[in-house]
């Protein structure tokens, strides 16, 4: 168990140095941010077009009014759920090895949750009326529940990132003397005068524990409510009582994959091989197998139960997936994006950092397309046949602005993670030290 934490017996100074070294604004960072900014601006130009001309610039129409914007939103909410699983569930079960990667999971969670709340606005034809959702929202509407729970989850994730980071912020305040003035000031005020007193640790642990407990129901509801946006309707393919757990289990798969990718990125770029070890990847791989198994189980339920009922609308929907109109994408996603990768990860060599990361990328892409499969085909099979409408309305394909705006949301996520990972250490320093001391004293 212990080999997951820094193998060598580093001195505390060494740990400080290793883990604080990423907190700087180097040339590489500037280049990367510059690249992201330029790409974002290009994508935002398309959003400007959409603002001017309305949703007509998208491929959406009367039948498919939820396209890749909503699929993307569902995907983002899903991915953000991982913070809860790693830091809360595993953290409270005192699973030691997650401690160094917990903050990465929280970063991923916060960034995806923040952008999820934002990206939903792109699906509005009149974003200037956003306020009406709050003013005239009805308590009965799952959309109102969704807004409430997404906002809450962003705040909890933020707090859960921030509060356990207090000792590290204090460390930044004390050790980093060559960063810009504003940054020093920021550390000073954010650290809340932290100076490692026992009482401060007690308080911090208390609040963290409260948050860890609170985040479980909130995280479960954020994705359950997102699934209810669909399941509360009477449409074939959506009208399913297991949609909540189905979405949640799928969320863990996407989230694990995203965390693995982020881990790989930080490990290589921030030279953290001693702290985020191959063993971490191995364990994350096993975790991914576990959640993927649960997800496969839900998928089987979602397909077999309605598909068995030969002539219902739900069955037609399933058949359309299995060997009809959507079958190519369906099998690519189910086999290529879920079953085959998870079978591969069963083999230990596949859980090494590089292969696992590649598999994670495939799984994450599969997870994204899976959301499209959940959102779009149902709308193309309404109970009343589609008749006497323009030809294009019998299908859906996203337009360039739609794709660009979706790409913009990914860029935003990456930007948020990048900036946060430059302002704060991505591996919890005090926890690593604590672990070491704990071990040494044994």
């Amino acid at each position: 168990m212990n080999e997951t934490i820094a193998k060598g017996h580093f001195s505390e100074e060494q740990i400080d140095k290793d883990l604080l070294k990423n907190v700087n604004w180097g040339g590489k960072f500037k280049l990367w941010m510059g690249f992201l900014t330029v790409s974002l601006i290009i994508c935002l130009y398309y959003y400007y077009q959409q603002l001017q001309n309305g949703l007509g610039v998208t491929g959406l129409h009367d039948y498919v009014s939820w396209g890749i914007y909503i699929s993307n939103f569902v995907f983002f909410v899903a991915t953000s759920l991982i913070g809860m699983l790693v830091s809360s569930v595993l953290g409270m079960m005192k699973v030691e090895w997650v401690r160094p990667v917990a903050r990465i999971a929280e970063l991923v969670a916060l960034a995806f949750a923040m952008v999820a709340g934002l990206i939903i606005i792109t699906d509005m034809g009149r974003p200037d009326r956003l306020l009406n959702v709050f003013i005239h929202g009805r308590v009965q509407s799952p959309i109102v529940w969704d807004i409430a729970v997404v906002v809450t989850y962003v705040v909890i994730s933020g707090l859960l990132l921030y509060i356990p980071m207090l000792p590290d912020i204090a460390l930044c305040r004390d050790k980093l003397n060559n960063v810009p003035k504003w940054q020093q000031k920021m550390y000073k005020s954010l650290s809340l005068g932290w100076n490692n007193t026992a009482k401060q640790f007690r308080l911090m642990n208390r609040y963290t524990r409260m948050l860890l407990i609170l985040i479980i129901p909130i995280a479960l509801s954020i994705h359950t409510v997102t699934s209810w946006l669909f399941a509360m309707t009477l449409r074939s393919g959506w009208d399913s009582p297991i949609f909540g757990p189905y979405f949640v289990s799928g969320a863990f798969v996407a989230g694990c994959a995203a965390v693995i990718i982020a881990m790989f990125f930080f490990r290589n770029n921030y030279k953290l091989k001693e702290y985020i070890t191959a063993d971490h990847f191995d364990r994350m791989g096993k975790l991914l197998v576990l959640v993927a198994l649960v997800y496969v189980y839900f998928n089987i339920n979602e397909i077999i139960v309605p598909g068995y009922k030969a002539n219902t609308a739900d069955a037609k929907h399933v058949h359309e997936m299995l060997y009809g109109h959507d079958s190519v994408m369906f099998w690519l996603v189910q086999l290529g994006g879920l079953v085959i990768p998870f079978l591969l990860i069963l083999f230990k060599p596949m859980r090494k950092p590089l292969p696992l990361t590649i598999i994670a990328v495939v799984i994450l892409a599969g997870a994204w397309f899976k959301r499209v499969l959940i959102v779009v085909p149902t709308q193309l099979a309404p109970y009343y046949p589609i008749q006497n409408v323009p030809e294009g309305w019998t299908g859906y394909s996203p337009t360039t602005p739609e794709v660009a705006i979706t790409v913009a949301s990914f860029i935003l996520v990456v930007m948020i993670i990048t900036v946060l990972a430059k302002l704060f250490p991505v591996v919890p320093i005090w926890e690593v030290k604590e672990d070491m001391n704990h071990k040494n004293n044994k």
Partner: protein
Amino acid sequence: MKNNKGYHIIILFCLCFLAVANVNAQSDWQVPAEENEKLSPFLFDDDMVLEGRVAYENLCTSCHGTPGQDDFTPMSPPPGDPAGEQFQVQSDGSMFYKIKMGRGTMPKFEDAFEDDELWNIVAYIRSFNEDYKQELPNMEGVVIPEYAMSLSFDENVDKLVVKVFAEELPQPEVSVSAYVMGTFGKHLLGKAQTNELGIAYVDVDPTLPGDEEGKVNVMVKATKEFARAKIEKHMVMAKPTERHSAIEGRHIWSTDRMAPIWLKITFFVSVFGVWFALLFIVFGLRNIKKAREEA
């Protein structure tokens, strides 16, 4: 083949015969002389034309089309356009009789309309003829009484009580018909004759649906020879209707006001509960700052 041809000729012949027979029949619609000379006791005024129009549009347009447009339904014999020659050369009495009695495909409207209502339709048909001059019966020496009516409802016996007066005197043997007015037409409650006290009783079905208070709009007509009168009144005499929302039981989706209480409580308790905890933590951060001073 040869045989077939023979059949064709026979069929063709029969069809021709039928067509000729029909044309003959049409020109042949005999109206008894007495009926033919019958005259409307009422002066065709705009009110009558209007009422006639409503009746016509509801019941005649489907076959006779819009008068003046020659768009009647093609059938044999053809119904004809009421604004056309065919109709207008006839006497008022003849038209009245044909509408009342019908023939073949032309329905018989005797049971559907009162005499005065039939005259309304004739008035309407005549309104398309500019040259028409109404011939009124010889009224010399005839005094037409002016009726006044009062309505009441006897809830002990479920009867509508109609009193007909003329200059304060009760009028016996007046025909009274009572209707309940609906949005799209009227419903006949019943017909009766006034007794020597000038009172007529019309049965009211107690299960008749009214508005929330059991009110219905009652219309009563009184006619006797050339005299006629009409009265409309809102009366409480029917079963009150409890209005239910058409989406009752499913109203969870409609306005905010309709949100079920359990949902409101669940939603607000959880949202406020969680935010209370969050604010507690946020304000608690001050304690961390205070804890420093101790050291």
